[in-house]
């Protein structure tokens, strides 16, 4: 029988939505045999949030001072120690999970599967390769613990209303002191919706031209109640912060509506938006590859079209 342990992602106060997405994937693997591990220094409230997720059997709370920050070298030995009771150990395909899960797998002496996008059976999965240009069906040995990351854009969040038991756990894992968290610098002030759970996203590219001009993107996003995203070129040029980058090496998003403005549609960008419900492209170049994937395309100058669009959307 498959039993899944999910590692919770959080910022010390709030559970990240990626955890509820992992539960949806885990249910397809193991039905109701799904537990969540919460590593924190003061984690009661977090464990209570995890316990409310529908479909969770038990929440394991591992509290120690070293767990105050998500340092992979610190968490991996503890997660590996807990993993021995499970057939599967899952983390999200966020930067948190990508950092932690391979280290955990190697400590267990097993491989890791990245970015599960579909479960065909407890040991058979689909995942993207080549920036999503191909999808492979992969079969894993049943004899080894299966450590994997879940492509969060492929799964919705499980509901709330669960009432899992919370158990405190201690591990005898020895924790290295060679890796030290210094600080987290966040550019976003939290006033805009989070890209990875937003239902609407307005994204700007190099065509927007400057950081000041990004006000056009923000104004439109404001009107729509949308999150703001960007292409790599816009981030590299310093128009916006790195955490807004969408794509192969940025965030993979799955909103109902994605509006790409002044973005050419390079394959590395497109791989991040394939799960969007409706893609709208505004670009002055009618041959831009973004139009190949756009559901609605408008060939025009963004500097006239975007303010017009913002106005037309009423208050």
């Amino acid at each position: 029988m498959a039993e899944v342990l999910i590692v919770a992602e959080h910022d010390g106060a709030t559970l990240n939505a990626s955890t509820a997405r992992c539960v949806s994937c885990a249910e397809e693997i193991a039905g109701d045999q799904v537990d969540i591990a919460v590593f924190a220094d003061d984690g009661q409230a977090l464990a209570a949030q995890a316990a409310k997720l529908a479909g969770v059997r038990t929440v394991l709370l591992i509290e120690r001072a070293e767990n105050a920050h998500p340092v992979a070298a610190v968490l991996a030995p503890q997660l590996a120690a807990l993993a021995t009771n499970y057939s599967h150990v899952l983390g999200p395909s966020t930067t948190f999970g990508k950092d932690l899960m391979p280290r955990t797998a190697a400590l267990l002496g097993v491989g890791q599967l990245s970015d599960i996008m579909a479960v065909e059976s407890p040991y058979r999965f689909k995942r993207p390769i080549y920036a999503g240009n191909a999808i492979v069906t992969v079969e894993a040995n049943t004899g080894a613990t299966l450590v994997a990351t879940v492509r969060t854009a492929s799964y919705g969040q499980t509901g709330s209303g669960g009432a899992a038991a919370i158990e405190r756990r201690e591990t005898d894992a020895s924790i290295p002191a060679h890796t030290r968290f210094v600080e987290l610098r966040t550019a976003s002030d939290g006033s805009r919706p989070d890209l990875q759970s937003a239902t609407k996203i307005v994204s700007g590219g190099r065509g927007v031209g400057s950081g000041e001009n990004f006000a056009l993107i923000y104004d439109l996003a404001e009107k729509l109640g949308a999150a703001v995203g960007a292409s790599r070129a816009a981030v590299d040029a310093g128009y916006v912060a790195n955490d807004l980058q969408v794509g192969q090496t940025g965030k993979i998003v799955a909103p109902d509506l994605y509006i790409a403005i002044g973005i050419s549609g390079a394959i590395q960008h497109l791989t991040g938006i394939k799960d969007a419900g409706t893609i709208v492209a505004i670009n002055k170049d009618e041959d831009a590859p973004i139009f190949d994937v756009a559901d609605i395309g408008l060939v025009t100058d963004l500097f006239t079209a975007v303010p017009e669009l913002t106005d037309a959307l009423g208050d």
Partner: protein
Amino acid sequence: MQRILVCLKRVVDYNVRVRLKPDGSGVVLDGVKMSINPFDEIALEEALRIRERGEVEEVVVASIGTSDSQQQLRTGLAMGADRAVLVETDAQLEPLTVARTLLALVDRENPDLVLLGKQAIDADNNQTAQMLAALWQRPHAVFVSELSIDGAAATAVREVDAGLEVVEVDLPAVVSSDLRLNEPRYVKLPEIMKAKKKLLETIAFAELGIDATSQFSVVSTDPPPERAQGIRVDSVEALVAELKSRGLVDG
């Protein structure tokens, strides 16, 4: 520092539009342009800059793959690496096996720092650096966009979902590069000539005695689901009407 080891993987060039074999057996590689994985080029550039600042003596590049990977190692030498090591194998190795192989190289070379790319753009695994660090029982800092060495430790700025995370790691350590770490230099012709004389050592994979059992097998390789053909509108007004009719905006 004495030495930095940089890992270079030979992959399909990032500009190539990959095509799938019609029978689902994989990606077409015959006659396709191959290059150093872009993140690895960035990793190498960083190592060279550290050496140019006088903070390390030697930069060694390593690759695991077929004899064709010599091309990428030569390019690395032309960029400025001092010498190269190829672990030769025709087999497709899983990241854990690659990490075990790199650990064997680490045991021979005793680097103070191992620099890798954050992910190889063929399989998009994003695992090897983290695994190598675990096997080596050393720190890792991955997705790094700024790196400074201060004596026995390094400070790394990491690109994470919430913004930028700063960590300090004791050396030796494993670091993986993100795109904004630097912009790699162009190779000049005289450097290519000079690189031909640099040492490129080849080790047979079998010689290292590494367990290469695979845990995963690929059953099939298929194209991604296609999106339905879209429409064009010719004005903002028409766009708004379309969005409204699809229930995507109010009104």
